[in-house]
Each structure stands twice: as structure tokens, then as C-alpha cells.
């Protein structure tokens, strides 16, 4: 059974802290994605990666960075967390050519106070 796991289900951080969100997939997928989900806005793509050490900006990359040192792991970094980054963060993965068939993790609910 396919599996995407995220390091935390809930996270509370203070403004200005550096935040790391980890995502691991066990399907040997080439593509990995980070989204944030906000009510009424759907899922918005932050960054994606189609290979190790490769990254591409999505629609809302400002305030975020990513790291992909191993194929199975994709990290999202908030360099200096702000209250407007309070959101649900979803990680997904897919095969390279079937990027539209994405497998999602359970999400991390991040609150920045």
C-alpha cells in the first residue's frame, strides 16, 4: 500500500522561529510536492521537486524554502515563521510522468502565534 508520511500532525510555533516540515514517501516516486490548504482557497502549490536536489517554485513560494537530499524525503522550511503561515500543509508524491495522480500525506496543521 502506498504511503506518504509527514513528521507531525499538529505543530505550534512562535513568530520568527525556523520551522521544518518533513515528508517521506515509500513508493520510489520521482515527484514530490508541498501545498498549503486554507478554507475557501483550496490547495496552493508552494514548491515541487522532480528529482533529488532539484526544486521548482510553485504558485506561493515566498517565505518558504525546500530541500530534497534523498529521493524519498522532501522537507519544507519556514525560515522565519509568521502568523500568516498558519495553515494546513500537505505533502504529495507522484510518478514522474503521472504527476496528476498524486498521493497525499495526512497533513500538518501548523499554528504560528
Amino acid at each position: 500500500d502506498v504511503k506518504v508520511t509527514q513528521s507531525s500532525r499538529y505543530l505550534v510555533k512562535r513568530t520568527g522561529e525556523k520551522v521544518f516540515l518533513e515528508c517521506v514517501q515509500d513508493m520510489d516516486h520521482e515527484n514530490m510536492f508541498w501545498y498549503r490548504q486554507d478554507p475557501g482557497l483550496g490547495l496552493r502549490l508552494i514548491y515541487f521537486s522532480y528529482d533529488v536536489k532539484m526544486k521548482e517554485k510553485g504558485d506561493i513560494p515566498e517565505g518558504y524554502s525546500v530541500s530534497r537530499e534523498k529521493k524519498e524525503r522532501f522537507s519544507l522550511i519556514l525560515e522565519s515563521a509568521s502568523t500568516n503561515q498558519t495553515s494546513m500543509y500537505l505533502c504529495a508524491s507522484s510518478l514522474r510522468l503521472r504527476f496528476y495522480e498524486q498521493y497525499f500525506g495526512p497533513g500538518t496543521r501548523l499554528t504560528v502565534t
Partner: protein
Amino acid sequence: TQLLEQSPQFLSIQEGENLTVYCNSSSVFSSLQWYRQEPGEGPVLLVTVVTGGEVKKLKRLTFQFGDARKDSSLHITAAQPGDTGLYLCAGDYDGNKLVFGAGTILRVKS
């Protein structure tokens, strides 16, 4: 501006009723997906439609892709409480990533 507009935003119906959810855009998509998300979980892919006019069925769910590949609909027959969730449409328009609609929250009461 949402590239994909979903309607209605919220739907509350009784068990056994039928319903249709719509996903519309002014852009042409190479493919369109429907996902369902339950509370506390990530979205799960239900179907991918690729050809204009295509109709796919998944038990009581019927998905249709518009002839011009700009819109899609999801019809549920005889809804059950287990159908409750957030339904998201997503489209591929540039060949390497998806754009998602805001979603339709469906609540089926028993």
C-alpha cells in the same frame, strides 16, 4: 483568481438523494482529476479524465469531462453518509503541476 471554480461551495443533503458538483474554468486542461478529502486526512484520488466528453463511473459516482475540456461534473446517486467529505477538482494545464479548485464540502445526513 481561481483558475478552477467549484460549485456549490457547500452541500447538505439527506441520505438517498442525488447531487451534482461542478468544476468550471475558462482554461483548457490536458486532464482533470477529482479528489476526496475526509477530515484529518489528505486528499485521495478518485478519478482522472483525459478526453473531452469522457464519462467515467465509480460505483455510485459518475464523472464527466466537458467536450471542450474546460469543465467537469461529479454526480452522486443515492448519497450515503460515507460520501461526506471535501470534493476537490484539479486540472493539469501546463504539463508539470496541478491547479486545484477551492472544493465542495458535502454533508450527507442519515
